[in-house]
């Protein structure tokens, strides 16, 4: 049993004004070290909720989440997160955003800057250290968010539709860069997306989540060797399968209603 992360019967319900809402039901999932897992599903199916549980920002209503075999408690620097919405601190420039986690740790300033520079370079933003978030494009902001999440050297990187709001071309570039970073840093990555293309291009394995309540309906390995070609036959084939699983889910949900 050398799972990096393991979810056992994880259920999450929210209390809302219309009563209880089950966002996630009975999720079982095990992730190996250095695995790249994509979580795909329709909007509102609970993908963000799942990542928040793993980040420790929320607690599951039942079930347990094991990190290196131990039940996890609250957020910690061993799990970095890139949020769905822009989450850079607007009052800090690029450099200071990336040093945030290091500053909290109380690391010596010189050292902070050295580490931050490394990651800023890794995400290709050298020369932009003094810029404030409002001076950055959407893609640049997400790069900074990635550098910030990496700076504290978490073993797991949680990414919630990080490229959801950038154009298709930039998105492709960012995906390639992310794979490069993944190869170099050997992180375990959980990547949420609702794009089939993105999942097939990036993931070792893809988990399909259905909506209301969010259940894990399919977990499939993507055995296409890297570097993958976005237009190759295997990629297209897998894309077709994935689309089918997703639409099956949709029809099932419709029938249930």
């Amino acid at each position, binding site marked *: 049993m050398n799972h990096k992360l393991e979810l056992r019967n994880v259920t999450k319900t929210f209390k809302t004004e219309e009563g209880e809402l089950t966002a996630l039901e009975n999720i079982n999932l095990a992730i190996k070290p250095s695995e790249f897992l994509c979580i795909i599903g329709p909007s509102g199916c609970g993908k963000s909720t799942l990542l928040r549980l793993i980040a*420790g920002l929320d607690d599951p209503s039942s079930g347990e989440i094991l990190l290196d075999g131990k039940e996890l408690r609250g957020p910690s*620097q061993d799990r970095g997160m890139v949020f769905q*919405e822009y989450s850079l*601190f*607007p009052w*800090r*420039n690029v450099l200071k955003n990336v040093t*945030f986690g290091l500053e909290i740790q109380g690391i010596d300033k010189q050292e902070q800057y050295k580490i931050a520079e490394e990651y800023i370079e890794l995400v290709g933003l050298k020369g932009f250290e003094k810029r404030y978030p*409002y001076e950055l494009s959407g893609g640049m902001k997400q790069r900074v968010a990635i550098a910030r999440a990496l700076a504290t050297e978490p073993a797991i990187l949680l990414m919630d539709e990080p490229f959801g709001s950038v154009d298709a071309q930039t998105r492709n570039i960012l995906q390639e860069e992310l794979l490069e970073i993944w190869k170099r840093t050997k992180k375990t990555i959980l990547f949420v997306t609702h794009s089939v293309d993105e999942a097939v291009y990036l993931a070792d394995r893809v988990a399909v989540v259905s909506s209301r309540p969010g259940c894990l309906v399919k977990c499939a390995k993507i055995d296409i060797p890297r570097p993958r070609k976005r237009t190759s036959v295997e990629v297209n084939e897998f894309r077709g399968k994935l689309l089918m699983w997703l639409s099956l889910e949709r029809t099932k949900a419709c029938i249930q209603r």
Partner: protein
Amino acid sequence: MGKNKLLQFLNRRGAIEAISLCTAIITWEIVADFIIRNPIKLPSPYAVFLSYLKLWEIIPVDIGISLLHFGIGLGAGAAVGITVGMLMGWFRVANRALDPMVEILRPIPPLAWVPFAILWGGLTHYAAGFIVFIGAFFPILLNTYTGFREVDKTYIDAAKVLGCKEERKMIKYVAFPFSLPYIATGIRIGMGVGWMCVVAAEMFGVSKSGLGFRLFQVFWPLHMIDRLVAYMIILGLVALVLDHLFRYFVEERLLKWKKGMVIQ
């Protein structure tokens, strides 16, 4: 001058503003000299100008004293207002404990505190500063409170994931910087109210010097209306300079990350 040249001139920065200001002063001069013809009812701008020549030695001293009162009050108001606002905005318990008192004390006009200022502080600079404090404290408190209340949850979550656990660090690294624009707004409003309080406090005899005291003195018993107007203009100008300095240093420098934010 050709029509084009005239237009060109008018388009220059400050041209229309200057013309308008001059027209107003000239109108005032004409009205004072030829229509009212009573320097007690309305002194002419020229008379006001002449009075400055006599006052130039004592005006800076009074400005200094008024600024001292203002500084004491605003400084204390900011220190206490930011602290209490922060506690109330961040900790629910503090909010529930302090809110009733704030709600009861806030509507009391600052000038209603003049008797107590004199009883407690005598005729010291602190007594006048106290009135300014009352005036500046509440806007600073309320704006700070709002800032801390509205801290974006995403920033808090981001900080948590980056290892920010203690409440103290969360305030220092996230909530306080987030609230800075709100605090700045509070201070700016507080400065406006505070300046009114300086004048009123000094007029009401909390002080035996300062612009407000002087302003009332030249009216009663001295009846030097030209000087009265001279002091009124000085009061306005000092406030204007203070406001511009604040905007320059705080909005242009400290809050340059919040470009385009409107502080009214």
